[in-house]
């Protein structure tokens, strides 16, 4: 390597801005060139993948449960299945790894909760659950407490279980017949949120005997996910194609409405930094949203991927895992253009520099156009346009109605307020 003397005198470096702009343009183009997010697909399931679970201690381990009751444990570095077990009869509805990582729980359509050892049984031994609890009704959702040996299930009511007991230590119900998912808050660990089939989201405090609050929306919410960094916020995936981020304290209207999907959103998961989340939808796409943006920054799709049922963001913030109807689990990069592997210092420097340039010139029309462009499957593209037309028509009609009625009788309702029916304390 030769020594390179530098002189930063601005008159020796003319056209500073134009050159930076050109660099930014090139960096943006290269980003699009290198945007190859799909890494691999893990196949082996004989039925649609219904649930995924991250290992709490090991980055390279992933658990998946399918619609035929099979649970598979995957090694993500080798991209192969290391263990298969027939956990339930019928669907595996939910799965969660204990906070210590030594065992995991599964629930299924056969009304059982089973606890399994994370270690595979020795050669010749049979797969036996550590513990089996037979419930009265079907369970649909499961989540484990962050620090204690306590877990929650949902079905006809939300139950809090102690690992040592075979009956729930607490049951919550609020006039609803079924819940679809339940999640513990990762920061305020005693709080829970659940989605009910009467279009409501119910919040609980584990220490109290009655639920805290509920918000009823216009359409049903499928799942919710708490922000792992900001305890108050959660995002829920709704049937009306949108996602809503709520502040737990002010449920009257969501802080943000995230639109872009063209079909029901089925699952959502936050990145460990809490800045972004990923959503899986019935429209066969996966989208990544910044937490405070109304539209997605990225959309992932392949020709073969069918309805995406479950999604997880890996704990190292680098990968996204999606499980879909057509029996595959797919591994994606969280940043589509990111280079994987160790970066040399100069490489790292160049990446940081181009990142900064892209940020500086992001609002320039030429650069914005290139950075925003995403190829969409034809049907999604058309559906999106159709939705846009419908929305515009609705808006036009509303303005016309307002124009021809008594002033003040047709109030302007913001997009955020539109989707909330009521809040019950």
């Amino acid at each position, binding site marked *: 390597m*030769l*020594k*390179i*003397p*530098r*002189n*930063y*005198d*601005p*008159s*020796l*470096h*003319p*056209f*500073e*801005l*134009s*050159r930076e*702009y*050109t*660099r930014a343009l*090139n960096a943006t183009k290269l980003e699009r060139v290198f945007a190859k997010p799909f890494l691999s697909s893990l196949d082996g399931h004989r039925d649609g993948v219904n649930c995924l679970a991250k290992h709490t201690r090991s980055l390279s381990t992933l658990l998946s449960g399918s619609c035929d009751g099979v649970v598979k444990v995957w090694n993500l570095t080798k991209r192969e299945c290391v263990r298969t077990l027939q956990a339930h009869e019928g669907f595996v509805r939910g799965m969660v790894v204990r906070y210590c990582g030594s065992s995991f729980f599964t629930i299924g359509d056969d009304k059982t909760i089973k606890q399994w050892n994370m270690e595979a049984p020795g050669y010749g031994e049979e797969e036996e659950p550590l513990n089996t609890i037979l419930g009265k009704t079907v369970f649909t959702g499961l989540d484990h407490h962050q620090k204690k040996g306590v877990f929650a299930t949902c079905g006809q009511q939300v139950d809090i279980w102690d690992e040592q007991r075979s009956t729930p230590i607490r049951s919550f119900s609020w006039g609803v017949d079924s819940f679809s998912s339940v999640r513990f808050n990762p920061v305020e660990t005693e709080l829970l949120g659940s989605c009910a089939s009467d279009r409501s989201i119910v919040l609980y405090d584990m220490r109290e005997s009655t639920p805290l609050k509920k918000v009823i929306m216009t359409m049903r919410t499928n799942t919710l996910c708490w922000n792992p960094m900001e305890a108050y916020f959660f995002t829920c995936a709704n049937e009306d194609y949108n996602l809503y981020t709520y502040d737990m304290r002010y449920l009257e209207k969501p802080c943000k409405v995230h639109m872009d999907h063209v079909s029901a959103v089925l699952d959502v998961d936050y990145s460990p930094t809490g800045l972004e989340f990923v959503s899986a939808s019935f429209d066969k796409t996966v989208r990544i949203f910044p937490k405070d943006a109304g539209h997605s920054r990225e959309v992932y799709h392949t020709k073969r991927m069918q309805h995406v049922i479950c999604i997880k963001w890996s704990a190292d913030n680098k990968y996204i895992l999606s499980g879909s109807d057509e029996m595959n689990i797919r591994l994606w990069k969280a940043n589509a253009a990111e280079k994987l592997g160790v970066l040399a210092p100069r490489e790292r420097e160049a990446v940081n520099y181009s990142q900064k340039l892209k940020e500086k010139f992001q609002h320039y029309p030429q650069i914005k156009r290139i950075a925003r462009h995403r190829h969409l499957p034809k049907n999604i593209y058309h559906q999106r346009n159709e939705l846009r037309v419908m929305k515009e028509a609705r808006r036009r009609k509303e303005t016309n109605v307002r124009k021809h009625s008594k002033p003040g009788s047709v109030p302007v309702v913001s997009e955020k307020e539109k989707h909330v029916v009521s809040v019950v304390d």
Partner: protein
Amino acid sequence: MASPGEADVNASHVEGKGKKKQPPARYWQELPDKEKGENKDEGQVEQQQEEKKKKEQQQTQKAKKRKRDERPRDGKRVISGKSDPFPGPVPVPQDRMQKFKRNDNIRKTHRKHYKLKEIITRSADASDMAQKQAARFDILLPEDAGFLEGDEDEDTCTISQEDIADAVDITSGAKYFNLKLCQFGPYRLDYSRTGRHLLLGGRRGHVACLDWQSKQLMCEINVMESVNDVKWLHTEHMYAVAQKKWLYIYDSNGIELHCIRKFNDVLRMQFLPYHFLLATASATGFLQYLDVSVGKEVAAICTKTGRLDVMCQNPHNAVVHLGHTNGTVTLWSPNQKDALVKMLCHQGGVRSVAVDKTGTYMITSGMDKKMKVFDVRAFKPLRSYFLPAGASCLSLSQRGLLSAATGDVVQVYRDVWSTPVTKPYMAHRVRGSVWGLHFCPFEDVLGVGHGEGFTSMLVPGAGEPNFDGLDANPYRSAKQRQEWEVKALLEKIQPELITLDPTELGQIDQTTFEQKHQVRVDALGFDPLAKEKFVPKFKKKGRSSAGGVERRKKQVAHEDQRDVIRKTVEDRRKMEEERKKMEEKKGALSSKKSALERFRK
């Protein structure tokens, strides 16, 4: 008198006992009791004041102690309790800070854009830090610039080149040399951007390129045609030669790479290194731009001003300046079909133009034997000099020295724009009349092409002493050059970005009136500001006299209304009559007194 050492001893452990504590004395502080012996009265007063101060100190001791602890612990802290006498980073001189200042005064938002405000302050902080760091780095640059200094009453212009060459070291002395090429002259020349390579083009067809410092000839050809101008392209491997009819591109081995027939009768050329554009001015009055990276003609502009023989570029904004025979200088960019600016600079034709590297000053010389300095940012004349012979060629060095060729004498001037100059800084007579002048970048050398060949003369203080290794590196290896070439090509600035103000790209694009109007028209469906369409009057023969028209108008104006008016007047009159009658009746009725009237009070 307490020496610093004693003060420290006192200060060491006695604080707890409530003894008065003095801060350790410093050698740079003025000692208060220095003059005690000389005037006692004053001394006493001082003593009292001191005591007072001490009392105050005692009171504030605790606070001070706290303060001392808070002091940033930079530098080495000596065990004895002494702190660094020069705390904090070394201050940077103001002029250096000014050198690295960018003109990005971001306006503060009046509205409550909290996020935006934060972003703005953060980026302002970052640019401040960058400016400071660059200024700090500037102090450490290895080379210094300097000028030739004569003895008392000695003009530097009388010092001959031989004397300078003898006085300096051998390597520098070898940079003064003559090439005697009397066969194919006069010569035009060009130095490559790194300053290592020299290209010579003789009027009668001789083209040579050489590594002039090692004096190695790279190639030498005779194109068997007259040569108007020669120019290096982005590297020392390609150069362009404007020949009698077409423009040719050769490589450094003298092999013809291209003959560009779209560019004919080229007289002068300029290469814009960051845009990879070769701008040519032709005898037919065309200014053409060739993108040398892709070989495409970017723009061809008909200037409609006749033969274009005077040309230079503004290195700050890549605008091309052309001088014309009517005394005007015009500024051109490839994006516009007509001149950006036209300046009348001279009475009589313009002979030569030069622009300095900061893009602030333009120097012109004309047939009126004047040399003028203009501020090209404000388009204002600054100074005018009269040269008895008139300057045929002008060239500006990196550090702002101006060389002007008058006949066979080359004169070099210093500070032409800041102070009125009376004498040249240096002068040198060459053998034939001068045809081309060029300062060598990063060297104190001026190349002069003339009728009898080429002279390389020493001009101390001409070149920039510190080069930047990533931009134009005179000592770069082949590998470095290749890497630089790839990077430079990737960073090629598009010709659309050539503007008078190169920072225009960073300014906010506010919606113009036209844009706003267009939006309004689209929304309304019609143009509210449109002029009414002209509808020609229907005239009949003999009926268009002014009086007749007026009369006709009057008739027509009231004819249809008269009936109506008459009717309404009639109606109103009737109504009035009826009303009167009614009132009379009422009055008659009311005049009769009722029976109850008498009870009225």
